[in-house]
């Protein structure tokens, strides 16, 4: 069934007012932006995520978490997107937890994530476009451990992170998924240079330079040369999660826009009376509903460990990205001049969409992936 169960609806009923109140744009995004916060998010709110049990949403019950799945994470992320709530939820509680789950690192890091004391970051992208198979960052064996050399970018929360998961190459060559290894790096490792960069949406993503970073063998998450397992688990969860957040961004922007169409008068009429806008609004509504369904389907297939999950995750990320792009473009355009001002919130949706659209792969990346996975 592609509808929420009673339990999932209860979760939604709890998260929706919480995010609309505590995670609201004015209280969080604008506040941290305007004071120039180095993290781009508030640790106090992240603690409240923990109190609600959200930080452990994907952590197994045996390890103190809620033991829920990607569908539930999606319910939370849609509300995060709707309110543009800045938090490390997607990278830490969703992607990193999936990467660590089942490895020896789970025991070490899960308690901190549960308590919201730990922020995790993923260092996968190296170029201006997402392409994890092309990883070039090298990990050479030295003694009992490894030496890491390379550069990473778009490491979301990288400068605030207590744990950075670095994907590096122990074998194979760029373009191959064999020969990758995932390393767990503690904060402040010698040789890691972190450039904290503010993005268009006021979130923070670091550029990393790794120069002869020495790590022990036990920094490896899972198997040496077998990093694609945890990396692809993190990517599946991250992509599906970003799709859900994008659906929330689209929903938030479009709701704001539809309200505006009912209030704003021009030429002596409410602008919502104009058919030119009505038809575009109705089309937009449909695109968002379709994106939500695709995202739901992808999450459900991931939870079921269905072999079609990878295909549907790419469908969801591409569709949600395109629908959200349409929602923010129509949102700013239909708001007219006021939509161009910093004072109005609609432009903040446009900035967030741009970042989330690129994160974990743009719609183009995922369309190409759909072609590849479909065999053409």
């Amino acid at each position, binding site marked *: 069934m592609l509808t929420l169960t009673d339990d999932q609806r209860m979760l939604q009923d709890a998260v929706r007012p919480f995010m609309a109140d505590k995670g609201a744009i004015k209280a969080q995004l604008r506040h941290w932006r305007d004071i120039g916060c180095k993290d781009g998010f508030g640790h106090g709110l992240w603690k409240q995520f923990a109190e609600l049990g959200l930080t452990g949403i994907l952590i197994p019950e045996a390890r103190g978490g809620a033991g829920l799945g990607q569908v539930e994470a999606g319910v939370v992320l849609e509300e995060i997107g709707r309110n543009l709530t800045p938090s490390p939820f997607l990278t830490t509680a969703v992607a990193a937890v999936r990467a660590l789950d089942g490895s020896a690192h789970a025991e070490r890091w899960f308690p901190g994530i549960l308590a919201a004391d730990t922020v995790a970051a993923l260092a996968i992208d190296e170029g201006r476009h997402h392409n994890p198979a092309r990883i070039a960052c090298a990990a050479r064996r030295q003694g009992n451990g490894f030496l890491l050399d390379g550069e990473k970018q778009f490491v979301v929360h990288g400068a605030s992170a207590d744990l950075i998961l670095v994907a590096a190459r122990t074998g194979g060559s760029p373009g191959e998924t064999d020969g990758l290894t995932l390393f767990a790096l503690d904060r402040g490792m010698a040789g890691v240079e972190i450039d904290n960069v503010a993005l268009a949406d006021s979130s923070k993503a670091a550029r990393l330079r790794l120069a002869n970073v020495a790590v022990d063998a036990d920094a490896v998450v899972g198997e040496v040369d077998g990093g694609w397992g945890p990396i692809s688990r993190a990517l599946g969860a991250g992509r599906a999660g970003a799709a859900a957040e994008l659906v929330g961004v689209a929903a938030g922007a479009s709701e704001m826009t539809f309200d505006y169409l009912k209030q704003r008068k021009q030429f002596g009429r409410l602008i919502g009376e104009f058919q030119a806008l009505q038809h575009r609004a109705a089309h937009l509504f449909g695109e968002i509903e379709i994106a939500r369904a695709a995202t*739901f389907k992808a999450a459900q297939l991931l939870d079921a460990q269905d072999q079609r999950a990878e295909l549907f995750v790419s469908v969801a990320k591409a569709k949600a990205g395109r629908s959200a792009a349409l929602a923010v473009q129509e949102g700013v355009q239909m708001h007219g001049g006021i939509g161009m001002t910093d004072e109005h919130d609609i432009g903040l949706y446009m900035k967030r969409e741009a970042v989330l659209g690129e994160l974990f792969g743009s719609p183009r990346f995922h369309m190409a992936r759909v072609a590849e996975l479909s065999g053409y």
Partner: protein
Amino acid sequence: MADVEQFRREVRDWLEANCPAEMRTPMRSEKDACWGGRHFEFQSDAQKRWLDAMASRGWTVPDWPKDYGGGGLDAAQTRVLKEEMASLGCRPPLTSFGISMLGPALLKYGREDQKKRFLPEIARGDIRWCQGYSEPGAGSDLADLQTRAEDKGDHYLVNGQKVWTSYADQADWIFCLVRTSAESKHGGISFLLFDMESPGVSTKPILLISGYSPFCETFFDDVKVPKDQLVGEVNKGWDVAKYLLGHEREMISGMGLGGDKQALGRAVGSIDDPLLRAEIAAFDVDALAFAAMSERFIDQLKAGGAHPAMPSMMKYAGTELNKRRHELVMAAGGSDALEWDSDRSGGGKAARDWLRTKANSIEGGTSEIQLGIVAKHILRLPGA
């Protein structure tokens, strides 16, 4: 749950035993569909046996009550039946406007004697129905209809003309909107059922740009219709009509899924042109996302949580997608796809199918009408 699994095994065994091998091959075109009715010529003995077998269990309409020729299955069982039919590749035993449109309206608005009389016939495929909605001059403003039904005591006397009546030339009966009062546009419409063999009914096919002729003009000249064939109350037919339109849109939106679930890029074979490949990949994303939406829409309908105007969104999205699919099939086919009458092209199948899809966003209410309905009833935009 154990009951459902038990049911699944029984269904599978029964389908294995009763669905002829020929009826487990994919349909090549619309022409392979079984429509039933008085004059239907079965393409094979297997086609008839398959219809009879399914009808005998009420499985042509599995979720209708048994009293009316249905299977009396609940939502979970209906889903199991569909899944098992899909997994064995069983063709639909019966394609019928009676099932997809009239039946649901009769179940909701029909009198008991009407349900007992008409629904089992629909379930067995005894009578082929057509729809008398559109009129020349009315077009998208459906309620602007002029066909009159005068009260003559024991019967109505019907005069007027319908247009775009799908398969009227092959239909046995018609469900028809008529004007019983001129005082109110929407409040003077009634919903009548009558036999196409009644004196005064005539039809004429309309040839389309595809070279096919699924639609007809239909003329009524002093047609007598017994009064017990009125569905619902006199002058309140618009409610029935709207309800039925929802089901029609739902049915048409299914076309967005294409004939099969295969990715278009895979179906058209190797694509050398990188721009075309990109367009097709973009299409496949939209098509797979729409397939998920269709699944969700059906789940919402069953759970009673679908907005009544959602079929309009689905109809719009599905038909626009289907047009795009066929544009891309033509682009991928190049000059091969342009052949109109060669054996090599299956008699111009690609080109004819492409042209036929252009009607999708017009028939059953244009895309613009659907967008207007979404704007008004879901988004509640002013003056829509």
